[in-house]
């Protein structure tokens, strides 16, 4: 029995990584209406920047961490300005292709600068595990979980209580009106991308110890993070994190079912996802979109 509990805690641990990347996706989707395929690769790239500061340059961990988050913020804003804004008025599919291009670009750059070797990256959290209720939970997982909750709260507060968040929502829901009200749409959109990249960098830096840092570190995660964001309803920070946990636990549990096994667990997990969406097409935390005639 306690081993099944171990499955659930393992699922929660990896699920919080999914959730933290999903948070970044939700941030961009909500502030600019774009599905960003490059979220994971940008996070990996930023993590490498942090790794370079800490390991290659030899800075103290938290200094490197902060610099990497800052760099990620700038990177996000620049990417929005250079690659996204020129296609803002194109159909979504075109924008999606640009984010796919960014995905390939950042992957190639990570590969070029840091090669495909897996690199160790220490965690700010203590190594080892706690032993509770017969299960082992690593401090790193607890740390990631905690930080993803903090990020979630941060994103939620930004959206709900700050002027910037209000402006972001205004820009997505009615750009014309918000421009008339004197909100600088461009700046808000850049800010959205910057924040999202920063949230991604935090997730990447913290998860690198667990996922192991290589240029493809986030590819598997991104698939689950998409699913997590969608289950969460695409616009809800809480939904993203809970969606991540749902995906993590579902994956762990289905792989323990003997007739599914680990080789079919990916398929089974996504079938569960589709079933959830069939029942609730708007996701667990999404609002039902009004059907206008």
């Amino acid at each position, binding site marked *: 029995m306690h081993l099944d509990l171990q499955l659930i805690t393992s699922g929660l641990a990896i699920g919080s990584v999914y959730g933290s990347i999903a948070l970044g996706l939700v941030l961009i989707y909500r502030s600019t209406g774009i599905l960003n395929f490059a979220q994971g690769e940008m996070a990996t790239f930023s993590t490498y920047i942090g790794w370079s500061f800490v390991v290659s340059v030899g800075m103290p961990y938290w200094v490197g961490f902060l610099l990497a988050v800052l760099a990620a913020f700038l990177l996000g804003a620049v990417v929005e300005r250079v690659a996204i804004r020129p296609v803002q008025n194109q*159909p979504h599919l075109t924008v999606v292709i640009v984010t*796919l291009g960014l995905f390939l670009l950042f992957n190639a750059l990570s590969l070029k600068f840091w090669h495909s070797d897996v690199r160790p990256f220490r965690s700010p959290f203590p190594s080892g595990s706690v032993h509770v209720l017969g299960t082992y939970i690593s401090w790193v997982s607890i740390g990631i979980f905690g930080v993803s909750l903090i990020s979630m709260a941060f994103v939620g507060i930004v959206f709900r209580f700050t002027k910037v968040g209000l402006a972001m929502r205004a820009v997505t829901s009615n750009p014309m009106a918000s421009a008339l009200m004197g909100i600088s749409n461009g700046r808000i959109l850049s800010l959205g991308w910057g924040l999202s990249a920063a949230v991604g960098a935090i997730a990447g830096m913290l998860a690198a110890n667990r996922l192991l840092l290589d240029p493809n570190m986030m590819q598997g995660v991104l698939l689950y993070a998409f699913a997590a964001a969608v289950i969460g309803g695409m616009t809800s920070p809480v939904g993203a994190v809970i969606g991540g946990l749902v995906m993590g636990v579902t994956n762990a549990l289905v792989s323990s079912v003997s007739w599914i096994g680990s080789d079919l667990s990916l398929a089974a997990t996504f079938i569960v996802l589709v079933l959830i969406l069939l029942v609730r097409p708007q996701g667990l935390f999404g609002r039902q979109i009004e059907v206008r005639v």
Partner: protein
Amino acid sequence: MRSVLHGHPRLVGLVISALVTWLLNEVLFPTPLNGYLVVLFAYVGGVVVARLSRGDHRYAALGPLVPLVFLAQNSIGVTELTQILILAIAALGLDLITGWTGQLNLAQGIFIGLGAYVTAILASKHGWPILLTLPLAGLVAAAAGLLLGVLALRFDGVYLAVLTSAVALAGPVLLLHYKSITNGVNGIIVNQPQPPGAFADWLDTDQWGYYVTVVMAIIAVCISWNLLSGRIGRALRALRDSPIAAKGIGVDLTRYKVLAFAVGSFWAGLAGGLYAMTIGFVSADSFGLFYSIQFLTIIVVGGLSTISGAFVGAVVIYELSTNVQTIGFATTVNGVALSIPQAAVYAILLILVVIFAPKGIIGIFSDKSDWSRLTQRLRGGHNRSTDVVQAQADRPPIVRLDAPEDPHPAITSY
């Protein structure tokens, strides 16, 4: 026949691209660059087909012949060309689903895989003649596409993207799992067919595969054109442009959306059969999510809702992803040669194409406004802030893709 270089923006475009290619080729890079040349040829081929097919559907059958230009230039091999045409057939199918009907589909690759397995299993395990298996490969994929189409009716936008990517992820895993049928991860080796009697003297196996593929591509183009230029094409565009008005004129959205999925998957399955026949080896892990995404980039780069766009896009994407070499600069910094890896070159070119030709390469030639937009931007002559506002206001929802660029046939020529 109308002049190929009709109108001055196109001329400017050609001159610019020729200059850029020359520059890339001669100044920056020490090695000969087939890839860039081929991209330029695709560009020229695109002009020809776009110009010709405007107003007359018979010219659209020239689409598959676009890549032939390169063969004549001897810059491309027959096996490569075969693969490009196979990509194009599948992209044509995806365009039907995504471009014409507005249903984002990230699972086209798995239908190719399905078709490839049908051909591989029938041909190598049951000894069927390969040509006979091709239509069956299409039909099996169409049946699967029909199922996905029915499921897709419930979803929209991002959710449809996730549904189809779930299929793209789960599909190969399932194929690998049922080892008794698919041979699991070991894959299936297909003996490539020899050309039949009369052809055997002057064609080798690869060339035979190539001609079969060309014929299939032309059939695919003709049938697609017939479907899309008539009542069914209008119904599909109607339901994409305005679902409400489409219902009003009597279009059964359900049937047509599912039809698009079934027919689009049929082409994917046929492409898969050709894949098995010409590659000679089928393994499910070749048909994953990234393989599928490749087809989205093909139709967007080539030009959504255009038949020749699928072919031009296939040439460009294939060449960019394989034959564009690492850009090595002649200069070095501290003795280390500067270079941009191939994948990054691909990514940057992809982004540039989408930014500067949002309606695809074909779009550059059939719509003047793209060029005027571009030249305007180059002159720096437009207001950014209002642009973004306009952008936000104008942006259609994800499923409602842009107006198809295909030059609309003048009714008089039917």
